[in-house]
């Protein structure tokens, strides 16, 4: 099906935003102090060897040429060389993605799995016990920093009870699951919980508010007038119409999920992209910082474009106008 004009416009908009974002990142890194050649060879290296390296890395080419070269590289998977490790940045990121991706996915699934039913239950029992409890949980969940939860989880479940490792990541093992797989999973459980709790709290409140808003609509009263019980009307009419705002909110949570990942990876010393960026900053490995920040920005923009498209597809009124 040929993409409709509004979808093309939305994709073009997202692409333009990504381009502008990459330019902002590139310029900020350009302006940052620190000469890559010195970082790689140490400050004591001779001037001419430094100059030779700088030339080899093409650091002397004009700004815009280097920006476009970087962009061209990113598109073809060549993000440049890490100053400190001397290996392709893309490889580093891919390797670290094997930690961050499952971590954030586990956290999101956990958050959605807990918050949507809890939010619906709280709305269905508005004003009664269940609602009060869910609201208190949500208030608490939003207020506690996820890295603090991480520390507490380590204190209780790792140090005191010893159910989980204190931190670190044994890797996925060569092929298939085997015990290495389980080791990796168990290393991700506490971090995923720490990352999931604030998300779950926010989504519980959003789901509850969305369900309450829809429950006040006239067509719910029509459903009840057809003889549907409160429960049946809730699941057949209220919840489907309430999912739309929840999906939108999920999209808006991505930046917080990424920030959380950087913190939680740090607490549990997981070799994820968050710690990569954080260490690269302290080692002045700016090419790594540059690419990681672009990657995260791209994820945020992609998810937002995705939720907008999903919103249009899910809501028949919008689809008609497309």
């Amino acid at each position, binding site marked *: 099906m040929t993409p409709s004009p509004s979808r093309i416009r939305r994709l073009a908009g997202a692409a333009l935003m990504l381009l502008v974002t990459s330019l902002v990142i590139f310029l900020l890194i350009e302006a940052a102090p620190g000469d890559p050649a010195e970082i790689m060879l140490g400050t004591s290296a001779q001037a001419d060897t430094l100059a030779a390296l700088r030339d080899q890395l093409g650091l002397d080419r004009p700004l815009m040429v280097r920006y476009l070269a970087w962009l061209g590289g990113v598109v073809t998977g060549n993000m440049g060389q890490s100053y400190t490790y001397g290996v392709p940045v893309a490889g580093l990121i891919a390797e670290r993605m094997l930690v961050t991706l499952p971590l954030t996915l586990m956290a999101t699934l956990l958050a959605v799995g807990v918050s949507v039913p809890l939010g619906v239950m709280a709305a269905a029992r508005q004003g009664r016990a269940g609602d009060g409890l869910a609201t208190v949980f949500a208030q608490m969940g939003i207020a506690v920093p996820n890295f603090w939860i991480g520390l507490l989880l380590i204190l209780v479940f790792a140090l005191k009870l010893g159910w989980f490792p204190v931190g670190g990541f044994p890797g996925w093992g060569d092929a298939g699951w085997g015990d290495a797989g389980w080791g990796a999973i168990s290393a991700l459980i506490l971090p995923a919980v720490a990352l999931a709790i604030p998300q779950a709290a926010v989504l519980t409140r959003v789901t509850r508010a969305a369900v309450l808003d829809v429950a006040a609509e006239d067509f719910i009263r029509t459903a009840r007038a057809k003889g549907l019980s*409160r429960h049946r009307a809730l699941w057949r009419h209220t919840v*489907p119409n309430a999912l739309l705002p929840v999906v939108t909110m999920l999209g808006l949570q991505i930046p917080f999920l990424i920030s959380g990942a950087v913190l939680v990876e740090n607490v549990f010393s997981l070799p994820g992209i968050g710690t990569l960026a954080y260490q690269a900053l302290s080692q002045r490995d700016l090419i790594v910082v540059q690419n990681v920040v672009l990657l995260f920005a791209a994820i945020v923009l992609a998810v937002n474009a995705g939720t907008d498209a999903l919103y249009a597809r899910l809501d028949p009124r919008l689809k008609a106008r497309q």
Partner: protein
Amino acid sequence: MLSIRNLRVTFGERPALNGIDLSLARGRTLGVVGESGSGKSVMALAVMGLLPRTARATGRIGFDGRDILTMPERDLCALRGNRIGMIFQEPMTALNPAMRIGAQIAEGLILHQGLSRRDARAKVMHLLDMVRIPRAAERIDSFPHELSGGQRQRVGIAIALALTPDLLIADEPTTALDVTVQAQILDILDDLVAELGIALMLISHDLGVIARIADDTLVLYRGTLIEQGPTERVLRRPGHDYTRTLLDALPPRVRATLRDAP
């Protein structure tokens, strides 16, 4: 079939209905007229057992020998849609925007009579014809926002009549519609009442709408029953000042039609 005895409804301390008595037999149409704040919609919701939690209702709403106010929720669910149908005022918001109209009409049939999807769909086609929606075959799978106000109100009627209830409550069914569409909706309601022999409670703030098809008329003011009787008597020889002000508020043209008739 429906007999209400001393119905009182309060929201917290605010009285909405203070002592209503009425009865409605099968095949008859009772007009309920009152301005905003008169409690006419509260009465409709009370008969459906759909009053909000904050409402307290006393008295008796007899329907086929049982009192709706004391019936357990499960029995009420079996009653709603099946034995008592309801049409609402705002066609724009009374239908689920994300569900096709065919499914919304069939829902009651599947729930109460356990029809299969295929049988329910056939019955829905018949219902769409009954409420005179043109080209039903095309329209059955459309979404509410694809229909006009008048067509949506017809879908509302189809929903309410899906299980040929004994009692139909229409709460301001034509207020949000254009005058020409209003007339069509009232005619459809009237034909169906005659054809199916159901009892209709027609609620409106406009005496002109009531007069068109109501056999008896009841006048409500701030939750109190002002006057009740055959429509002709109430219009020609109103027994209460408030009814006279209601009549007086009607445009002169409409009132003129009253004087020259026998």
